[in-house]
């Protein structure tokens, strides 16, 4: 059939106007793998003709460029302070220099404001650490996590810390009933008086498990939620949340002793956990294998311990590649 005609049918189909005959035809057309490329080309064309709202692509691009450039953007003083070529140039030059030094100082303070204002505790991949804060609160940080504590004023008026990653908090109740607040990215925060709980805040979403006492959650959309002991609240990146009740605390605190707790956990999710915990990328190219589920508790201080367990448990091969580790089923002769 004529390419133009196919294109028209595909467009009609995207618009929801295709007949059953046309659909059947497209199905046949797509059995030829080579036509998939044309299909996505048409899809792209179709989308570009049907914008739904204005997308701020420039802003998103700037963010993406930051991802592409690993290093911090450098500050060039010449851009901050344009030097004029007028007759006053000579007279004002010293002031200009002084001003640029001050500006640079301010910029430096601005760039490093986090380091100046906060003390940051950070754990490496595969490492957990315990900290005691000035008010007596005990924090255990899981691997690949960081906790920022204000250097000034912590415990004076408020007790606020910032968490990225996962941590268990055992908060001391103060005599004046001072609130303790754990903030995470995306305006999500946990507020308590004195209690024990575990906060998980990574790229995948957020989760809070409460073992004792009572906590208040502030969700990004302005909603508030009170939790009881045994409650688990999971918050997706969209802000949608779910509250469940758990009988055992084990899955949420097992990491403290380097235990991995798998309960009908897919290999996909196991791979995710290895990446979070040890910073090692794991790839499971076979869909069937990726779906296999594992149950049990395993202690692993290093990723290799866990790979050994997985290899024995599932009788699979662990192959080290340049940028990642691949799990495959061995081929039988």
């Amino acid at each position, binding site marked *: 059939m004529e390419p133009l005609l196919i294109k028209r049918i595909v467009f009609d189909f995207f618009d929801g106007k295709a007949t059953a005959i046309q659909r059947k035809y497209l199905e046949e057309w797509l059995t030829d793998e080579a036509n998939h490329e044309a299909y*996505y080309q048409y*899809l792209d*064309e179709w*989308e570009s003709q049907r914008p739904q709202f204005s997308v701020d692509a420039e802003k998103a691009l700037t963010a993406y460029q930051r*991802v592409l450039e690993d290093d911090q953007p450098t500050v060039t003083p010449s851009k901050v302070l344009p030097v004029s070529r007028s007759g006053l140039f000579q007279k004002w030059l010293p002031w200009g220099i002084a001003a640029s030094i001050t500006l640079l100082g301010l910029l430096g303070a601005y760039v490093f404001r986090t380091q100046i204002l906060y003390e940051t505790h950070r754990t490496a991949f595969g490492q957990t650490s315990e900290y005691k804060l000035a008010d007596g609160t005990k924090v255990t940080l899981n691997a690949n996590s960081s906790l920022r504590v204000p250097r000034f004023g912590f415990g004076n008026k408020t007790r606020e810390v910032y968490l990225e990653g996962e941590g268990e908090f055992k908060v001391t109740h103060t005599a004046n009933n001072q609130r303790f607040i754990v903030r995470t990215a995306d305006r999500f925060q946990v507020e308590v008086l004195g209690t024990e709980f575990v906060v998980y805040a990574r790229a995948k979403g957020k989760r809070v498990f409460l073992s004792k006492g009572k906590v208040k959650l502030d969700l990004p959309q302005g909603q508030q939620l009170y939790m009881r002991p045994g409650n688990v609240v999971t918050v997706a990146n*969209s802000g949608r949340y779910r509250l469940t009740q758990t009988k055992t605390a084990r899955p949420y605190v097992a990491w403290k002793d380097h235990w991995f707790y798998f309960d009908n956990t897919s290999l996909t999710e196991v791979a995710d956990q290895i990446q979070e915990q040890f910073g090692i990328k794991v790839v499971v190219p076979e*869909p*069937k294998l990726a779906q296999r589920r594992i149950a049990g508790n395993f202690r692993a201080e290093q990723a290799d311990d866990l790979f050994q367990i997985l290899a024995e448990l599932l009788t699979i091969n662990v192959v080290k590649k340049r940028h*990642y580790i691949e799990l495959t089923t061995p081929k039988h002769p």
Partner: protein
Amino acid sequence: MQQVPLDDTENSGDSLPRFLGSHQPLQPGKVTDDELIFRQLFAQDPKRGCELLFRRYYTNLVNHAVRFVYSKEVAEDLVAEVYTAFWQDRVFERITTSYRAYLYQTVRHRSYNYLRWELHPSDSLDTLHTQGISPALQPDEVLHYSELHQKIEDAIQSLTPQCKRAFLLSRIEGKKYLEIAQEMQISNSAVEKLMIRALNQLRQELKGEWFISLLLGLVTYAF
């Protein structure tokens, strides 16, 4: 069946700067239009390749994702994540399809997972952020995606005007419940109820739409 030649009049790489000298017409039957240029560019400078790939497809991909997830914020995040993984995991070294086909497939796949997660609260987070190189989809699955977003659109259109307005204000314009309440002159809890009703109706309309068994097989690479 013969391959589809490029009709250069409508679909040239005009949004692409001509960084590789003159824009030569490609012979029909080859991997089409911009793709060849992208391929050459990636061989020389992957970083620049990623950036231009972003410029070229980001807006259209967000536009596509939003048909499934019906939330501007989620759609933008989702597409940005696909691009981030594309660079950080060096996906571009391993894909066998065109960049365009890969991006669209992955965005569809992730949108679908997100939607399923949002409407099926029993699923855990683990299918939410999987990313990978999907093997070629079966023809029926390829078509099913389009039918799914049409169904979603129908479901949204069939909401009561009030319900639809609250839903769109929240999900597309990104307004907070409090702002919506003020704008619609109803209480905060009424907004919440409208949102719950919208999602419930979506859930009802999409019952039986889940081609989970087909798609689970596509969760191939886990990062």
